[in-house]
């Protein structure tokens, strides 16, 4: 009986999570939007397209070394949410970001996102697709490619959101030395110190998953942020309750 209960717990947890996402998304759709705290990384990203237009220099977006069929999928999807925002801006302004990645599957999704944003204009879509670059599957080779990209294209700004490892510092340092506006984010705790050291603004851990909510105000993303907060409170109370129970016992 207890064994069955333990096996059913993850399913129950997921069902509660699903219900919370639906509930909060529905609330947001009905106009009950929460006040989102300001995240400076996203504020900077919002201003980058304007800076790229003013200076006439390229904007670079790195989707990292993660893929879409492994444990790094969520990080890559977070990077794709940023791309989706920048692609929509590009469709309006005509300044397409240069997008790089290490996984070829991610490249296909990036092309899809870019094509989706330029759906009304085939010519500009074709031009935007030229800026999507698959570099190399190995993390160090990818980092070398991005370093070269930042140097040769004389990028105005770089946004690196996705899955990264130690190789982040190689790219981040080039951006820092060239005084390029730089926003970095990853969920890998080992890469976060490198991002903090080299980037102007850091998207710390789970903040990268909030890209859709902050940049595009997507209802489902805001709803899932609220669901995450609700679950987090549940976990905090469970931990606190456990401590109390064991202390009293």
């Amino acid at each position: 009986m207890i064994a069955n209960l333990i096996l059913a717990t993850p399913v129950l947890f997921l069902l509660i999570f699903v219900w919370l996402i639906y509930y909060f998304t529905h609330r947001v759709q009905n106009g009950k939007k929460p006040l989102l705290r300001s995240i400076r990384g996203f504020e900077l990203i919002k201003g980058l397209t304007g800076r790229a237009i003013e200076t006439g220099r390229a904007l670079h977006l790195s989707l990292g070394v993660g893929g879409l069929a492994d444990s790094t999928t969520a990080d890559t999807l977070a990077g794709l949410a940023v791309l989706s925002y920048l692609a929509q801006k590009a469709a309006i302004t005509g300044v397409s970001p240069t997008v790089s990645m290490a996984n070829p599957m991610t490249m296909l999704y990036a092309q899809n996102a870019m094509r989706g944003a330029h759906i009304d204009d085939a010519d500009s879509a074709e031009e935007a697709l030229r800026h999507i670059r698959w570099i190399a599957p190995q993390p160090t080779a990818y980092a070398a490619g991005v370093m070269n990209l930042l140097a040769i294209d004389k990028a105005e700004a770089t946004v690196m959101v996705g899955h990264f490892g130690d190789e982040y510092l190689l790219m981040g340092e080039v951006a820092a030395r060239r005084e390029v506006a730089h926003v970095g984010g990853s969920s890998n705790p080992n890469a976060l110190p490198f991002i903090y050291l080299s980037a102007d603004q850091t998207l710390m851990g789970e903040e990268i998953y909030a890209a859709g909510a902050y940049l595009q105000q997507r209802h489902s993303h805001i709803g899932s942020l609220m669901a995450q907060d609700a679950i987090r409170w549940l976990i905090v109370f469970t931990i606190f309750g456990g401590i109390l129970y064991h202390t009293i016992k």
Partner: protein
Amino acid sequence: MIIRIGRIFATVVAIVSGLFVLTDMFVTQWPGNFFGLKMAVNNLGLLLVSWAAIVTAFALLLGFANVMSVHANRIRTRQPGAMYSGVLLLSLIGTLVVGFRGPASANGQFLFNAILQPLEATFSALLVLFMATAAYRAMRIRDLESLYFALIAFIVLLGQPPIGTYLQFELPIIGGRFELPILKDFILEVPALAGMRGILLGVALGTIATGLRVLMGLDRPYAD
């Protein structure tokens, strides 16, 4: 209309495939076979994951075409760094030709052992230099946050090597003994670990939420 039907079809395929793979994860843990159902779900889950591997292999071919087209365009339009693009294309084609005999062939092994591996190792070694310059920049105190950062880094760095063990003395007024390695251990094991666990918990929740949004069809990166 065709696009709309295509989107609906893609969404249905994605949700059904995702649900099967998720069910497979749970069913594997359950005792018993449930009249062969467990085995069937296991096999289907494995099949879907193997299909993902095949699709990734095809994506690699498209990636190859992307590299060729980007660098050929750089050479054609004589952009800055076109020479490097030429070297890259030559290396790419050379590796491809060598690869026809298989990666285990003598030439293939030579490429990996004598060129690729040393290059990667050299590049990784550059990290040490980059770390030093990044640390130098980080130690410059600009605001209160960077002051904390520099102070904590200083304590941990000093507490790590053997010389740190000599940094201990009796505390004058309050009494007791100050030992730097103990302070360093406290920083690493209490506030740093607590922060790390907080980040990991948040990341886990964010990952689950992202996955559930795709499973629920609220997020469709494949059909946007």
